[in-house]
């Protein structure tokens, strides 16, 4: 119980620090009034805007007001259209998930088996090819890949739409772009975990017991390698909401990432902060879950220390 509370307190503290940092950096970096009203706006309008949004008050007080409001459930209003921020942001979440969930499933569904395969054939040509492909996918900037895919499949071949989210086909290219980049992580990580497990003495014991090699891999290697892999997947899930910014922009996909880009550009502070808070919460929550999950999966952590 102490362990759990300790982690929970740390998580809450992390969130607070993230929000505070974002808050101060945003407000210190540029004046929303000038950006939203335009550089030609009359000074009285600017002053009135600032007053209306409470931007003339000292920063620390603004922060306390904000925290108070958040704890009440009020995440503010958009400075552009006055809409309540929370519903604005939450509306976009399903749209982002429409491409993030399939791409995550693809990345893991391809990356993990590829990693296992590479580990079982380590130092062979197959291993090197897979790892090279993984590195290529990882280092290729997603906007380059995205634009190339749009050019080929939307412009030249006309098979798929180039943007928007009108039909389910529009999701294909963004999902592919995202998956190509993120498959590398599970592939490399799984390979690493498997290689480490395969080098352990208990694998040799399993063979010495008379198990055939595929039984050794299935029953002894994979379950042990699965522990770090599952935790890695947990982190990837946590980062889901944050990962689509560039891709959504390339494909004009109206999700959370696009909202973030437009809100930062226009200094729509409340929206940006709300998105940040949401993303940070999911990441911290995923972290916490992963920590607890590790304790459940690995018996060595469950009951602590050896008995003598």
């Amino acid at each position, binding site marked *: 119980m102490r362990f759990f509370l300790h982690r929970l307190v740390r998580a809450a503290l992390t969130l607070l620090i993230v929000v505070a940092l974002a808050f101060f950096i945003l407000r210190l970096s540029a004046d929303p009034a000038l950006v939203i009203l335009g550089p030609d706006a009359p000074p009285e309008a600017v002053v009135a805007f600032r007053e209306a949004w409470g931007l003339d008050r000292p920063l620390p007080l603004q922060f306390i007001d904000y925290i108070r409001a958040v704890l009440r459930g009020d995440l503010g209003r958009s400075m552009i259209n006055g809409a309540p921020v929370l519903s604005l942001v939450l509306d976009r979440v399903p749209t982002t998930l429409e491409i993030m969930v399939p791409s995550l499933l693809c990345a893991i569904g391809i990356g993990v088996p590829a990693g296992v395969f590479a580990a079982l054939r380590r130092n062979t040509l197959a291993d090197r090819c897979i790892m090279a492909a993984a590195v290529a996918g990882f280092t290729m900037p997603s906007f380059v890949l995205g634009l190339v895919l749009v050019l080929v499949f939307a412009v030249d071949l006309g098979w798929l739409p180039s943007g928007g989210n009108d039909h389910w086909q529009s999701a294909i290219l963004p999902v592919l772009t995202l998956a190509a980049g993120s498959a590398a992580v599970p592939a490399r990580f799984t390979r690493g975990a498997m290689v480490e497990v395969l080098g352990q003495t208990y694998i040799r014991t399993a063979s010495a017991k008379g198990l055939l*090699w595929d039984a050794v891999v299935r029953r*002894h290697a994979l379950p042990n390698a699965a522990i770090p892999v599952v935790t890695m997947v947990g982190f990837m899930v946590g980062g889901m909401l944050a990962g689509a910014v560039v891709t959504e922009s390339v494909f004009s996909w109206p999700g959370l990432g696009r909202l973030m880009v437009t809100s930062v550009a226009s200094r729509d502070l409340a929206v940006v902060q709300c998105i940040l808070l949401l993303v940070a919460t999911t990441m911290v929550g995923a972290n916490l879950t992963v920590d607890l999950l590790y304790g459940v999966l*690995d*018996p060595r952590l469950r*009951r602590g220390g050896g*008995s003598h």
Partner: protein
Amino acid sequence: MPRPTDRPPLVELRDFGVAFTDVPAVRALNLRIGRGEALGLVGESGSGKSVTWLGALGLLPSTATTTGQVLLEGEDLLVASQQRLAHVRGGRIGLIFQDPVSALNPIHRVGDQVIEALRVHRRLTGTAARAEAKRLFDRVGIPDAEHRLELYPHELSGGQNQRVMIAMALAGQPDLLIADEPTTALDTTIQAQILDLLDQLRRDTGMALVLISHDLSVVAELCSRIAVMYAGRIVETAPTDALFEHAAHPYTRGLLGAVPPLTGPRQRLLAIPGNVPEPWNLPPGCAFAPRCALAGDDCAARVPALRQVSPTHNAACLRVGQPGMPA
């Protein structure tokens, strides 16, 4: 009573060799193990004592190549199929390793690990398997067996984990148990318990035992015959008493002198000068010659073959049998 060496051997290694990408770790090994025999295999690091058995059972990584023959009642294991080898491992020849905690799967309960061996070799499942696992736990001296079956390796001590490994090895009812430094990682009092257990089990089941160790006295307690290895070759084999009283090879004598006695005068030890040669840098001829007080030019000319000191005692040294040398 016929000596083990008179009957056809259970396991015979003929001209057996293991090399790791062209670097030989074991060379031209000839060894016979009779049914029910207890053989001690002694050597220091680099002697190849563990690699021999891992190679014989096909448990080395793909970078290792084996040569010669490993005959299990006449059948050559080196050309056997994977299925056949899997059957032999655990079913005919059992193997236990040095560090029991890391040799057991950390996320499986110890009972399940024994049951897995029972399923593979004796087709036991369900309650029958569990009952047999409990019986094995009792047999190897694990107290409170019913409860301990459910525990994980990290919840047991080193000694208990080694008992689990022994139970697992016995599950397949092997004819030969190879114990590779089974007590090196354990405390002295626990070491005594485990050695005693191995001795009892061997006597009760009629199983043969190969006890691998760097410690001559550990091996001496349990084994009726001892083979000493150096730099990948066997340099001496003899019945235990003969080895201790009339060791013929200078290396064996060096090993015997290197251990402080528990009784007798307290004096400096007889230390062998120099170091064990690296496998890729072996001296020509006798690998021990550079460190040997009796070495001459003839020792570097060629690798000495095993010479007979007595019908049951051989040593690979040119000085054996020469006038003035102890036989």
